[in-house]
């Protein structure tokens, strides 16, 4: 191991990993450049826009302002880990069906943020979704379609649950 590096064990998109990283490096940098997970987007770089949102043990964090060593012993979910093979997650499907994107640069952050919300609140109302999203910015589409998509996905997920 190189001097100054730390060794950590973590899970990234459900894959166990052993990483050696410098403690000053950002989560965004390690996910994008070392692990090739380019669905994590860099935008404002100051934890305002939410484009780099990933889930750390299920909680949304801004990868641009989180140190990579914080992954130690924890589980990271990026947009790449959301779909199962060809089967899209209902949130991804709803974003497509409701045209809740244009360029899509903010979309991974929005979807992961919404994923975390639906884990806490399976059927959130519009006000809750709006409030939850104040850490995410979209510059093309606006928010109406995004909120619509989250409501749609929530309904379809809770029906799935009900059917089980």
């Amino acid at each position, binding site marked *: 191991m190189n001097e100054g590096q730390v060794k950590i064990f973590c899970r990234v998109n459900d894959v166990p990993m052993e990483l050696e990283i410098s403690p000053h490096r950002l989560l965004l940098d390690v996910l994008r450049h070392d692990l090739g997970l*380019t669905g994590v987007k860099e935008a404002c770089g100051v934890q305002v826009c939410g484009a780099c949102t990933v889930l750390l043990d299920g909680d949304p964090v801004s990868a641009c*302002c989180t140190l990579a060593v914080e992954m130690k012993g924890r589980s990271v979910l990026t947009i790449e880990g959301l779909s199962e093979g060809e089967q899209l997650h209902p949130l991804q499907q709803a974003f497509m069906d409701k045209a809740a994107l244009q360029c899509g640069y903010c979309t991974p952050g929005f979807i992961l943020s919404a994923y975390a919300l639906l884990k806490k609140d399976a059927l959130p109302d519009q006000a809750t979704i709006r409030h939850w999203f104040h*850490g995410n910015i979209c510059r*093309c589409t606006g928010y109406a379609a995004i909120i619509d998509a989250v409501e749609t996905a929530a309904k379809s997920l809770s029906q799935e649950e009900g059917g089980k």
Partner: protein
Amino acid sequence: MSLETKTQAHPESWVGKALSRGDFRDRVTGEFRFASDFGVDGMLEASILRSPFAHAEILSINASEAMKLPGVVCVLTPEDFSGIDPYFGPTYRDQPILAIGRARFEGEPVAAVAAVDKATAQEAVKRIDVKYRPLPAVDNPLAARSLDAPDIHTEIRRGYHYSRVVENEPLPEKNVGYSWSYQRGDADRALAEADLSVTGEYVVPIIHHYPLEPIHVVARFDRDDVTVWSGTQTPFQVRQELAAIFGLPQSRIRVLAQPMGGAFGAKAFPKLEPLAVALARKAGRPVRIALSMEETARTIRRTGARIRIMTGVNRDGIILARRVELDFQMGAYADAGPRVAQKASYVSPGPYRIPNLAITARAVYTNTPPSGAYRGFGAPQTTWAYELHTDEIAARLGMDPLDFRKKNLLVRGEMYFEGDTPIDTDFAPVLEKVASHVNWGEPLGPWRGRGLSVSFKPSQSPTESTALVRLHSDGSATLLCGTADMGQGTTDAMAQIAAEELGISVKSVRVQIPDTAQTLFDQTTTSSRSTVIMGRAVQNGSRQIREQLLERAARLFKTPADQLKVKNGAVHGPDTTLSIPEVLARTSDIPGSELAAIGHFSTPKGNSSIGGATPFWEPCWAAAEVEVNPNTGLVKILRFWTAVDAGRAVNPQQVEAQDIGSAEGMDVAHHTGRQLAQKLDDGEVVHFLYAPTRRTRQTAHTVREGMEEVLRQRSETGIQLLLPEENWVIRNPDIYVGGKRVEMVSSPDALHEQLTGTGLAVSDLRRVAFFPQFWSADDRIGYRLSHAVPPGESGDIVARRFLAFARSLADLPREGPHRFVCVTHSGCIRAVLLNYVLKRDMREPEFCESVDLCISDNGQVGITYQAYSKTLVLYR
């Protein structure tokens, strides 16, 4: 808010269908490759040293310490420019790759490093020693035109792209890069003779586009072959300028326009491509420049404007004359600024019938970042001015604003300007319709009001697009067209148009991204032109292929071609149907042979005042009903309707998304306001402090709205909420006081001179520690401070500044209880909590909505957040 989309879908047709875009899947799974995801093997990373001064002479650059750093491959300075012509710009070639001898705006590139990784490049930049001699700087058009202002440019060469539409001599007056004027009738006489004349002045600041993806470019230079992968709206313009800079044939320069995460005009024309190629040339290896958002904001802005309008009307409300005077803030280099000024000025009288008209416009150089187009080529700036003015006239006449507009709006077929396309929409009828959606004319509740606006703009002309259409032997097709993808969905629209003409499924059409080595010439992806102009080229090419296909089928079927139809992937005759692959196979001796055609569409340069007649007008309308809080002046939007005449919507789903995207607002800070209101004591005065960006301003307003909601229920009268605009509005590095941005000055007295009407005394200014920090800063120049560590700051620095500012409020003069509500980025609040209170990050979106800071008389800051509380003794 809502919107109606006029759909004219044909049965069994692709055009007009609300289709889910083919690229959505890759965009929701993270697989989509944006410009910022692109890289090549062996690539170096770059970092740029930027001028800390708004205007300065560069005396020397010493890069020897930077070169000693392991991992640094090269440092580029202007000394490397021998043998090339290092200037670029679509209007004038006035912008150097790196500042040569003189930096003209804060943030201008002065030197650049290519290194094995980004961290090394950034470290090397800090070791470059540059000696500057600061020069006087000007940050607004009026100051720049004054006689004692510095000359920002002394010599300007014409560029290529706008050379046929911006034809005047550069620099007609001091610091004026462009002037444009127009006269019809005798405006002065008609103004003097009018029953009523109304004058208004309207100012719009420079802003940044903020596409979510910052600017990214990768370049390689292999002997005399240049390849550039760039998130650009204009690959062909970039190619042309790179060829001129490096003295290479255009055939040796290959620009591949990578899909962008939004652009909005910020990524048109060369930006960092010349620097990337120059670095790759010196390094002998490919180089990537990946800007941060802060650097992107220092690269391009929307043109600011100061607009003065005088209008003469008769008693019946008919406009007789108008004079418009416009000064545009262009920044340090022209970029598209002159064309923005020209197109904006052209529509500045509004879509009204005006017999006597005079327009004078100037685009002025200032020591601010270069400014270009942003969603409308200046039309938003001028619409805001003339529609405010329209309401002012109606009010002075005592006339209903809708009636006044209806009397004067142009009608379909009428000429706006001689030589242009007749008006192709129905301004007044659509305005009446949007007005009806806000119940125009019906009695209004107390403190409610309604407003209307109508806007329009011309597209690009003269204009040209070409497309290569290929129909493959299996009946699928590939389009090569130069329209860049910035998320607007044009690639899908092109596929729909081709599928419609070729009678095949939209799913079997591939649209190739622009690559100047392969795609045919396209002017630009700007000015809302692509769906219409490139769409016509694709349609034209596809029709040629359909004709070729039908000719072949006619021979095969022994039936005249005009009795054949191509639909659903097959050619249908009166008696026979044969699939497209069968027709192709049976009419060729070569298996796999395909059909190809070049589609073309252009409009000529004409006699219109801005170069050519617009191929189509882009009109839009809006109506709103709002409620004003009589105690606070706060405005709440109750209803908001917009309408666009998009012509035939190729994909209605995308048209809606584009329209709503430009109107969606905010609803996030109410909750915070409600929480704050619970803490207020009777008789308190609440001040709002916030940054001048629109987002923060809106947040401040909404926080206040939430507070008021609670206060109404409590029906307490003593609490006084001051409007953010009435209050002190502060931001580093600009200072806003009383809602006005003030220039950096050297004394409280000089600052006070700019504050007439705010009620602030010089002694007030002395007492607030925040202000003296600025006028006592050694490194202050122009109106900005030099940052020791540009552009980012650590969370700790932000937190310390935040707390120091909070503490400075302890010195405020006050009578009775005061409370200050500081609206800032959640990141700043988090930094304070992380560093001083919780020692752990709050994370998003569970971020802290509000933190109480209590400042004691001895300057200590107490912090309370939820259950945590702490008192800090900070540095004095």
